[in-house]
Each structure stands twice: as structure tokens, then as C-alpha cells.
């Protein structure tokens, strides 16, 4: 290709493609700078400059944690675990039919039912459980019920999405064989599809339960029950040693639930 009188240049991309990639990066940088300027338009930099002092101040107030406060935390902790677990149950129960309606190989109608099921999944997934809680507290009043329903509503999309993907990945030959015996639709589901997706289903549910434990610890900030209620109260009264204590309890719970979830998932697979 290259004769001796021209300088050989080794390139692994064509010039046009390289230009395009450079242009893409440039665009990203420009977008980022613009975003930064828009975002910090109203930022009061004096507060930001003051942050290290504030942090030091906060640190000195937060430590040591008020260990004795734990006595008042057992009941909220029990509530938190119940919100997460009951909410997961609720979400899973609703997610199962939604997943079967959304999977392209089990949906009764690809034109009408499937898009609705997919919209339910996207809507549930896009909206954080704290926002669901905010809404539900305003609708049915503060308390555990709002928290459970919030966790349930958020879990539907998560569980249904992963489950319908698992349903779509099932081995078609096994389903064909069950169909060939003269099985009815419900029997094909029971013998051909369910055994294939059951392990995935257990894994997904436990995984979501683990996430829900984390999320349920803060639902109380908007009044939806659990340990977050104590957190909100302590924050309002600027009782920082109590806040630290609550953080410690939350951290402990999260670590334990993660361990349990990993163990259970390991046992299933």
C-alpha cells in the first residue's frame, strides 16, 4: 500500500469514523459544561466553601452515637422488615400474571395485551418506591399500609421484567413435547414453562426482597412507616447522635439482608 516515499501511517479506524468519534466526545464535553452552568446558576458558593467547616461541625455532633436509643428502634425495625417482606409478596403476586401477559410466547394478544403489560412494567420501574410512598401517604394516610403498597407497586415492574425475560428464554422443544401429549393451555404452562422458570423466579424474588429491605428503611421519611419515621423525627429535632444510631442499625440490617439473599440465591442455583 505505502510506497517508500510516503510516510506510512498506521490507523485502526478510517478518517471519517475518527472524526465522528471526536465530534461525539466534543459534543459530550460541551453538553456537560452547559449542564454544569445551568445547574450551578443558583448555587450559593459561600455555602459550598463553608462545607468543610459544616462537615466538621456535623461530625462532632454525630459522634458518639446514642447507643441507648436502640431500645426504641426494635419495633420500627420489625415494621421495616415487615414492610419489605409483605411488600415483596404483594409485588410478586401481581408481577406473575403481568410477566406471563408480557412474555411474547405466553401473551394472549401481542397487539392489545402485551403493550399494556409492558407499560405497567415501565411505569412501575420508573417510579421510585419513595415516590410511590409519597403518593400513597397522601391518598390512604401515613402508616405501614402505605409503605407495603409502595414497595409492592415498585416491585411489580422489577420482578415482572426479569421474569418475562426468563419466560421468553425457555426451551421451546420442552414446551413442544408437552403440547404433543395433548395437554391443555394451563397444563402446558404448568408442565412446560413453570419448571423452567421456577429457579429464576425464586432468585429474582429474593434479590428484590434484599433491595426492598434497603428501600423500606427510608420510606418513613415521607410517613410510610418503619425505621425512617424515627429518622425523620430525629432529623427534625436535630438529634444527631440518634441519627447516627439509626444509620448504624440500617447499615447492619442491609448487610445482614444482603448476606441472607446471597446465601439463599446460592442455595437455589
Amino acid at each position, binding site marked *: 500500500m505505502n510506497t517508500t516515499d510516503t510516510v506510512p501511517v498506521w490507523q485502526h479506524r478510517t478518517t471519517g469514523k475518527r472524526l465522528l468519534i471526536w465530534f461525539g466526545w466534543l459534543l459530550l464535553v460541551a453538553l456537560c459544561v452547559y449542564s454544569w452552568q445551568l445547574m450551578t446558576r443558583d448555587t450559593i458558593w459561600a455555602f459550598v466553601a463553608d462545607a468543610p467547616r459544616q462537615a466538621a461541625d456535623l461530625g462532632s455532633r454525630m459522634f458518639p452515637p446514642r447507643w441507648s436509643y436502640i431500645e426504641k428502634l426494635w419495633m420500627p425495625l420489625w415494621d421495616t422488615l415487615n414492610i419489605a417482606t409483605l411488600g415483596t409478596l404483594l409485588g410478586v403476586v401481581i408481577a406473575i400474571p403481568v410477566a406471563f401477559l408480557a412474555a411474547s410466547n405466553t401473551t394472549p394478544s401481542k397487539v392489545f395485551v402485551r403493550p399494556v403489560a409492558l407499560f405497567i412494567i415501565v411505569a412501575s420501574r420508573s417510579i421510585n418506591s419513595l415516590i410511590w410512598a409519597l403518593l400513597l401517604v397522601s391518598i390512604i394516610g401515613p402508616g405501614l399500609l402505605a409503605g407495603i403498597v409502595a414497595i409492592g407497586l415498585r416491585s411489580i415492574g422489577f420482578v415482572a421484567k426479569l421474569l418475562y425475560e426468563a419466560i421468553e428464554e425457555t426451551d421451546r422443544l420442552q414446551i413442544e413435547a408437552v403440547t404433543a401429549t395433548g395437554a391443555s393451555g394451563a397444563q402446558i404452562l404448568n408442565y412446560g414453562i413453570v419448571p423452567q422458570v421456577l*429457579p429464576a423466579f425464586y432468585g429474582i424474588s429474593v434479590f428484590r426482597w434484599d433491595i426492598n429491605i434497603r428501600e423500606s428503611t427510608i420510606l418513613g421519611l415521607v410517613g410510610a412507616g418503619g425505621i425512617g419515621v424515627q429518622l425523620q423525627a430525629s432529623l427534625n429535632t436535630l438529634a444527631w447522635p440518634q441519627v447516627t444510631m439509626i444509620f448504624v442499625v440500617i447499615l447492619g440490617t442491609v448487610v445482614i439482608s444482603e448476606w441472607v439473599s446471597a446465601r439463599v440465591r446460592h442455595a437455589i442455583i
Partner: protein
Amino acid sequence: MSGPAFRSTHTLLEVSQLSKTYAAGDKALDDVSFSIPAGQVVGLIGPSGAGKSTLIRCINRLVEPTSGTISLSGTNITGMSTSELRSVRRRIGMIFQEYALVERLSVMENVLSGRLGYVSFWRSFTRHYPKADVQKAFALLDRVGLIDHASKRADALSGGQRQRVGIARALEQDPELLLIDEPTASLDPKTSRQIMRLLLEICNEQHLPAIINIHDVVLARQFTERLIGLQAGRIVFDGSPAELTESVLTRIYGEEDWTTLDHETEAA
């Protein structure tokens, strides 16, 4: 249920002018007609892509034929609604190339799934099958030599064992006809022969007609009494193994294919 002796006198399966064109435009079957009397074991041979698999899947309508008729003991299968289809499918046992067992269910549940066309959903859901069905399932597992494996999960078995479970599942249906799709393609030569022998024994014992879709000509010749040769979706041969001369094989497999196949035959 009226006894095989009665059936042996009439045509069990009648296929006439069957055609199948897939959505993509490929013509898989073109004007296929043949009939099978009760108790006959037929080998279906032909190169891959000749439409063998489509043909046997049309018979229990896992594949929907484009035109033509299929009738089993006088009942027209092609005109049936999906709900009527259930009662015909249970009369036709099917055995698959890759066993197609439900991997995560036990061996026994796989065999019992042959009764799905007969029992109610609730019975099958709770696994409370009628006593006679369970006894028959154990008897069949005994017949194929796997009674000690009844509680094992299907994916814990070897290939040959899985195919035996597949045979037991098909027989659990009390079928009038067996459709067998490449029963040995996933097995080693020795196991292949064992499985073929077992299938033939069972067909003879129960006077059960079968269509065996098989690409291995040597096995087909050895084990079946009648061969149908399919080429590009058309029947090009229908006769006894003795009539299957080299020139006929050339017609089925084409010149080049046949020479390579011939070498394989000599080697075997």
C-alpha cells in the same frame, strides 16, 4: 381401546395431498400422499431439509399444514379446532431427537405427563394421577429399564436414559400411532442401536404403527419394514428396504451426497 386385532385390517393413517409452505416462502412439503396400515413401522428417510421433520409435525399439527388432509382412523385431523385437537394429540405419541424432557421435573412426572391429555388440570397440577396411570407409568419405566430412577430429576440422566424416558412418556399416552423424530441423532452408535431395538420390540409387542424419521440409512434398512424417501418435500420412494437400491438412494440423496454416504456405510 377396541383391540389392535380389529385395527390391523384397516388403514390407520391416511395422508393425502399434504403441502406446507412456510411464511418465508420455503416449500417444505409438496403434495405428499401415503397411508399406513395398523401395526406397520415406517422409516422416513431423506437428506436434511427434505421436510421429514415438518411432515411428522404436521401429523399432530405442531406445524399447521397449508393444504391437504390427514386422517387418523377415519377422523380428519386437519379440519379440527384447537380444542378438539387435544383429544387427537393424546392418541399420537411423539418421541424427539433431543429427548425434549422437562429437565427440571422428575423422571416419573415426565412419564406421567403423557396422561395430560386425559386428566383434568387440577389432577395434573396436584400430581394426583389415577392409580392405573401411575401403575402403568411404573410398568413402562420397568420395561425401559429405569424403574430405579423414577424419583431422579430428568437432567440427571444420560442421553440414552433420557430417550428411554421419552419412549415411556409417549407410551403412557396409550397411543394408536408413534411419531419418532430422529430418535438416535443425539446418541452414540451403540446406544442408537439399543434404542432402535427397544422401539421396534415395543412396536411389535403392542402392534403399534410408527413413523420413524431417520437420516441414517443403515439403521433405517435394518429396523423398518417399509421406507418412504423424501426429497425436497416430495415422496420419491415408497417400498421395502430390499427395493432400496443404489440408484434409488441416488435419487433421494443426489449424486454427491450419496457417494459420501456410501463411504460412511462401508466404514460402518
